[in-house]
């Protein structure tokens, strides 16, 4: 075949007619996948003049460069293996490292039940691919991980979200939802939860609720997808057992209802793109088949790197400790800045670990609009709360990342957001005569410091209707 000297594609433009032709070819699942104006706005926050509290980034600058260099040099000596395909389920050496990480969280696993994935994100995709037919129900927390939303949408899942409080997902509310679904003849394919330092909520599921969730799953024979990227990033308080280990204990054997999702992204590096799932064998087999279709196997290079790193006695745990010290200070800086700069009537979570704080403002403020103002007039960015809901709720909340940037920038960023909120509230006040005048008196009557009260808990479950407005303004 003769090759053309001009590169293909350029100049061969699809006309509107042709696009309509392709439109008809697109799978119906792509309809739920949309490029939203909000996402385009988020893209603008990556400019250097904007302080971004929006990312989900850990701080990778802490990894010693000389160690990185040494490990890579070591990996490079095993050319044949490093540059070769690996098994779909991952290299045995990687499974050993995974077992070590999970043991550090008090969870014993059978190495045969591990599949190494391309980031934890792939586990979400593979689990959906394995379990979800269009219209199937997934029960998730509200708010839920914004990055899971596109996966759920792509598989056309019907996502039911359970509003969390300071102790995570209330299991009685979960049971109510399960009963309601049962009355419609439906049962969820799985329950999706991030029990530790939830993204974006920042709350942790209490031990009692963990136990009860496992009981409910066992009573009703439901699968649970336990997403635990941050469990080891705990800055205070006692570590709590994983759902996987509680289920194993309840069964007196290996867990057979919990699919566990772990990742090296937050304890080591997201650039490695290495995560894993631990799953009951029949599920694992299907995950493996789905992964073969997706990418055959995860990178041998980065798996070898992880193995080399874990071979350094105690190095990874020391790194995690360093991260904890760093992030603890940053979290504290953000909490302090929130108290200093966010107006009364705002509420935020006080995470014991992880990367995120979830703040909720006066319900009349739409944080997508606030982001536009904060970006253009103050030069600061965050994730608007709506990204964490499937149905348009979350409009007055925001997710703030405290892990990715140094403390002075965190303080300045929060100060700027606080300024934008105050500007909007003062405008609201002048548009609703009477309310503005009443606010100070009402606040003075309140015996408890409303800010302190708000700090310790997520706001109550909002009413679906707009009947009961918060009266604290």
């Amino acid at each position, binding site marked *: 075949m003769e090759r053309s000297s001009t590169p293909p594609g*350029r*100049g061969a*433009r*699809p*006309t*509107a*007619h042709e*696009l309509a032709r392709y*439109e008809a070819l697109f799978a119906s699942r*792509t*309809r*739920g*996948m*949309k*490029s*939203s*104006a*909000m996402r*385009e*706005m988020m*893209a*603008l926050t990556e*400019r250097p003049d904007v302080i971004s509290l929006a990312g989900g980034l850990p701080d990778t600058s802490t990894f010693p460069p000389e160690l990185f260099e040494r490990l890579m040099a070591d990996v490079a000596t095993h050319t044949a293996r490093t540059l070769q395909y690996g098994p779909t389920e991952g290299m045995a050496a990687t499974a050993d490292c995974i077992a070590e990480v999970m043991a550090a969280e008090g969870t014993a696993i059978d190495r045969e039940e591990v599949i190494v994935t391309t980031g934890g994100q792939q586990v979400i995709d593979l689990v959906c691919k394995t379990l979800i037919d269009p219209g199937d129900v997934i029960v998730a927390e509200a708010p839920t991980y914004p990055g899971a939303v596109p996966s759920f949408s792509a598989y056309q899942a019907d996502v039911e979200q359970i509003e969390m409080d300071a102790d995570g997902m209330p299991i009685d509310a979960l049971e109510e939802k399960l009963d309601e679904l049962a009355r419609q003849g439906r049962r969820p394919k799985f329950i999706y939860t991030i029990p530790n330092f939830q993204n974006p909520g920042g709350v942790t599921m209490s031990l009692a609720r963990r136990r009860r969730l496992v009981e409910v799953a066992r009573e009703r024979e439901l699968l649970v997808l336990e997403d635990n990227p941050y469990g080891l990033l705990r800055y205070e308080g006692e570590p709590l057992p994983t759902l996987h280990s509680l289920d194993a204990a309840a069964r007196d054997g290996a867990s057979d209802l919990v699919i566990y999702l772990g990742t090296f992204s937050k304890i080591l590096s997201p650039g490695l793109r290495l995560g894993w799932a631990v799953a009951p064998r029949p599920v694992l087999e299907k995950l493996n088949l789905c992964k073969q279709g997706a990418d055959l196997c995860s990178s041998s290079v980065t798996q070898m790197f992880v193995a080399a790193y874990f071979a350094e006695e105690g190095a990874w745990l020391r790194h995690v400790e360093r991260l904890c010290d760093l992030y603890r200070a940053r979290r504290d800086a953000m909490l302090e800045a929130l108290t200093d700069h966010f107006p009364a009537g705002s509420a935020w979570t006080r995470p014991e670990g992880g990367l995120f704080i979830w703040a909720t403002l006066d319900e*009349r*403020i*739409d944080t*997508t*609009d*606030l982001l*536009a*103002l904060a970006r253009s007039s103050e030069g600061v960015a965050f994730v608007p709360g709506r990204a964490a809901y499937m*149905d*348009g709720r979350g409009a007055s909340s925001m997710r703030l990342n405290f892990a990715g940037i140094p403390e002075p920038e965190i303080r300045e960023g929060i100060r700027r957001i606080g300024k934008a909120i105050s500007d*909007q509230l003062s*405008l*609201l006040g*002048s*548009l*609703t*005569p009477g309310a503005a005048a009443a606010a100070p008196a009402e606040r003075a009557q309140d015996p408890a410091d409303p800010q302190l009260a708000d700090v310790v808990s997520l706001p109550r479950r909002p009413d679906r209707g*707009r009947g009961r407005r918060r009266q604290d303004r």
Partner: protein
Amino acid sequence: MTDAPRRRVAVLKGGSSLERAVSLRSAAQVEDALGVLGHEVSGIDVEADLVEQLLALQPDAVFIALHGPQGEDGTIQSLLEALGLPYTGSGPAACVRGTDKALAKHLMREAGIPTPDFHSLRQRAIRDLGAGGALPSIEQRLGFPLVVKPARGGSALGVKFASSSSELPGAMVGAFSYDGTILIERHIRGRDLAVSVLGATGDTAEGDEARPPSDRRPQALPIVEAVPREEGFYDYESRYGIGMTTFVCPAELPEEITRRACDLAIEVFELLGCHGFARVDLMVDHETAELWVLETNVIPGMTETSLLPQAADAAGIAFEELVARMLESAFTR
């Protein structure tokens, strides 16, 4: 394709507006087409060194593929006039009139062109003049539901419904996040139409004298209707998100409505003093079949799914030909 002279064309794109991403996609398409047409193309992502870059490049023409503030509010156009560089599309005055929806609607109302009843408010007037006190009067005059939107800004961001007095302040604060002036507009329930208009070619090509005068008037392209896939979206953003709306072109409308919509679009094009091309958005009322003009876009999107290219395609004008015609507008002012 006509044998147009090979020109050095600068394509202005990007910038820091909320529509940056759309602008970059538009520009990519336009740059390709200009290349196919045989021109020498330089894309410029608009930043603080724009003038420096233009002076260094000395283009024969500037193709403006910028959306949002600066790109379509007359800023860039005024600057290019100051530099003496020919550029595509409308001049500064039409840009100011088209981009400021409040101004455009005032002008349309004065000219007797139907536009939904509205009031515009400045944020400064709320602070300095206590304009918040006028809300009950506005509500009474316009009635609910109302649409609240920033006076400037092309995306659906900041556009909200208010179905009662209690929802109005929040919607207004949202809209003020994007612009210092907002519109509070009576909500029309109906079908969304877009009429793209191409200006008179105005060239002096052979045989031009023989053409009837009607050819020298702007030309309305086939109407595009935006049909939401499902009703009941919770906000404008979802409604206008990619994949949420299908576009039908030419729109299936009674002939009389089609003709009237095209006439209105051309009238608005001339009223605002547009040059080269523009897109006029209208609604046709579900119940009364009345037509209402909402706004005019002086820099319509040029992405693969944008409405102007779709309309041109339906009129048998290929993308390159459309881009060639848009480029010519730089030399016919």
